[in-house]
């Protein structure tokens, strides 16, 4: 027998060693204890004060580290997400990686005209259908912020359109606590009851504290509401180094981690053991253009660092990848998708969002969801590594073929080629004459064709009629309330 050999090799990547992880963590704990966080909701301030936090200036809360450590302990290290049909599909935890789109893009590159125009409700349906068909997109998000729906209703409408057009778990935003409650009503109608929803959650609320070190009333209300309803929440700050946080990466990271951890404290004090996913964005603000980079190399460094830290703490982790600062799907977008998706996979992030984004989080281009899908497939194959055992070392067939022969007709080849080697579905592998013969199509063209083909032919599993009607009623009530 072979001893001492792990017969599966896989790509391994860690940025921080344990001492570095602890240094960042301890700095975050010091920030919470010495500087504190502003909490703009009395209920949350009271909860914190009631458990030993110190309050100054009415709503600045200094959180001692024992509260943070207790919250890290009580927060689940694994959060299971179900699809609309109550089948478990995502086990957020460990280094299991799942990918999905992002929320709220106000502009869309039209699939047909290629003009950059306002996003519409139809675009939400389109991106949902495309995401539903894409095998490597595990969860869906609105992807757009529809301008043809009145403000104050668009989050509700988006959720409704998504749940009607895909069975996949939904990563969703809500404008206010009121929105969230309506959306949870819809989700409960789909699940059967709020109790069933808590048992088989098929959605993740996405809410953010505000850097530096502030929990807005809306954000913290949603945080507590999700905790009380035991609906998974992703509560993650987006900090701009040099503007809403220190310019240095270690400092930016420490502040962002403090913000995320303070969210976990409030959440766990509101409902111990309730599901939460954590993570941060700590990227630079471009000091020339005053824009936010979704793909800066510094962002990837802080991404890897917080992933190491939260893995160390045993918490399910959010990630950002498959996105671009380019305003149009171009070579820059290609490079940035490849770089960020591989990076997020190596970081072992569980809930990797923003796949399909371009334009620094402002522009949708639906075929780019399929581009991300293809890159993810490639990355997943890479992350699987390869086996090193007798069968895979292949000594028997090497001996059989001998020098100068070929392996094409060997059973060993036939047995392994499918699993061992990845094949693209959209990226070119045609030789030049075949490529010319088939119309010289670049991947951009193939992506648009595929997207249009999916929109024409893909039929997502429909929501049962009764539930669809319930959602219709909830929507109608929401529109009436808004009018009043």
């Amino acid at each position, binding site marked *: 027998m072979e001893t001492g050999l792990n017969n599966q090799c896989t790509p391994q990547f860690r940025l921080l060693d344990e001492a570095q992880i602890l240094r960042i963590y301890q700095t975050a704990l010091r920030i919470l204890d010495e500087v504190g966080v502003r909490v703009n909701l009395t209920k949350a301030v009271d909860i914190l004060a009631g458990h030993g936090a110190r309050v100054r200036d009415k709503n600045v809360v200094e959180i001692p580290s024992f509260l943070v450590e207790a919250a890290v302990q009580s927060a689940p290290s694994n959060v299971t997400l179900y699809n609309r049909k109550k089948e478990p599909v995502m086990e957020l935890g460990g280094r299991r990686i799942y990918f999905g789109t992002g929320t709220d893009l106000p502009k869309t590159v039209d699939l047909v005209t290629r003009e950059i125009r306002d996003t519409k409700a139809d675009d939400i349906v389109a991106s949902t259908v495309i995401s539903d068909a894409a095998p490597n997109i595990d969860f869906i998000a609105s992807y757009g912020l529809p301008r043809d729906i009145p403000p104050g209703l668009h989050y509700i409408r988006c959720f409704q359109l998504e749940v009607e057009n895909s069975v996949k778990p939904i990563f969703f935003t809500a404008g206010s606590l009121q929105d969230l409650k309506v959306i949870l009503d819809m989700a409960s109608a789909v699940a059967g009851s709020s109790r069933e929803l808590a048992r088989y959650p098929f959605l993740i609320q996405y809410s953010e504290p505000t850097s530096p070190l502030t929990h807005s009333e809306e954000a913290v209300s949603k945080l507590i509401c999700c905790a009380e309803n035991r609906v998974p929440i992703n509560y993650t700050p987006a900090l701009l180094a040099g503007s809403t946080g220190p310019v240095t990466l270690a400092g930016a990271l420490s502040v962002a981690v403090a913000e995320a951890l303070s969210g976990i404290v409030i959440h766990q004090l509101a409902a111990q053991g309730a599901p939460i996913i954590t993570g941060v964005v700590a990227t630079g603000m471009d000091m020339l253009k005053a824009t936010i980079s979704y793909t800066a190399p510094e962002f990837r460094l802080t991404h890897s660092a917080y992933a190491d830290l939260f893995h160390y703490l045993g918490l399910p982790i959010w990630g950002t990848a498959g996105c671009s600062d380019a305003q149009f799907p171009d070579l820059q977008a290609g490079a940035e998708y490849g770089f960020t998706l591989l990076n997020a996979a190596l970081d072992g992030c569980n809930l990797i969002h923003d796949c399909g984004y371009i334009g620094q989080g402002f522009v949708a281009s639906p075929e780019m969801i399929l581009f991300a899908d293809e890159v993810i497939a490639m990355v997943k194959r890479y992350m699987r590594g390869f086996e090193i055992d007798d069968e895979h070392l292949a000594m028997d067939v090497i001996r059989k073929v001998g020098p100068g022969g*070929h392996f*094409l*007709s060997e*059973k060993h080849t*036939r047995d392994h080629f499918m699993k061992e080697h990845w094949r693209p579905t959209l990226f070119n592998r045609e*030789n*030049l*004459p*075949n490529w010319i*013969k088939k119309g010289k199509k670049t991947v951009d063209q193939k992506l648009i064709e595929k997207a249009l083909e999916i929109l024409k032919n893909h039929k997502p599993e429909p929501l049962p009629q009764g539930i669809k009607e319930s959602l219709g009623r909830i929507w109608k009530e929401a529109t009436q309330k808004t009018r009043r």
Partner: protein
Amino acid sequence: MERGNPEDKEMTVDIIKEIYDAVLEGNVDEASSRVQQALNSKVEVKEILNRGLIAAMDLVGEKFGEGELFIPQVLWSAKAMQGGMDLLKPHFSPTDRAEKGTVVIGTAKGDIHDIGKNLVAIMLEGSGFKVADLGVDVTPERFVEKAVEVKADVIAMSALLTTTMQSMGEVVSVIKAKKLPFKVIIGGAPVDQAFCQEIGADAYGMDAADGLRKVKGLLGR
């Protein structure tokens, strides 16, 4: 055996279908045992060959061309077909033409890159051609000499290097000078239709599936 008995006819159809499926799936043992069973049941050799083995391999070639089957699968189908052919051969009557044609194949002089050539050879064999494989680094004289010897229909050559592809032209020149009846098909990464015309070859295969298609085209089969 008397024809026309409906039960027998049904059985014949079934067994031919099984042979066809076995080749399609690349199931070598199954193909051979079904061909043997068919022979034992006195199914006509031509039927087994044309509607079983060759029909299946034609579909395999087609599916490969469309990206539905992969190279190793094609090769195993070819093996299954070959196994069946070996069993049929002793039963061919002298008037039966067993092969679709004869192809002499090899890589150009100075070129030892043979994977593409091997693929074409296997696909040709799989489709019912008789193949004389001269291997690698074949001189123009050797190509012609072998073609004369086996009464070839086609000479197929490949090159991976721009430095070796030139020698393929010499083969064409010799054939033309001696007024020999062989068709010439060429292939390989640096080769294209323009080069094919430049040296006066009869066809250019852009990949293995296309090579097979073109050989069939050259022979009108």
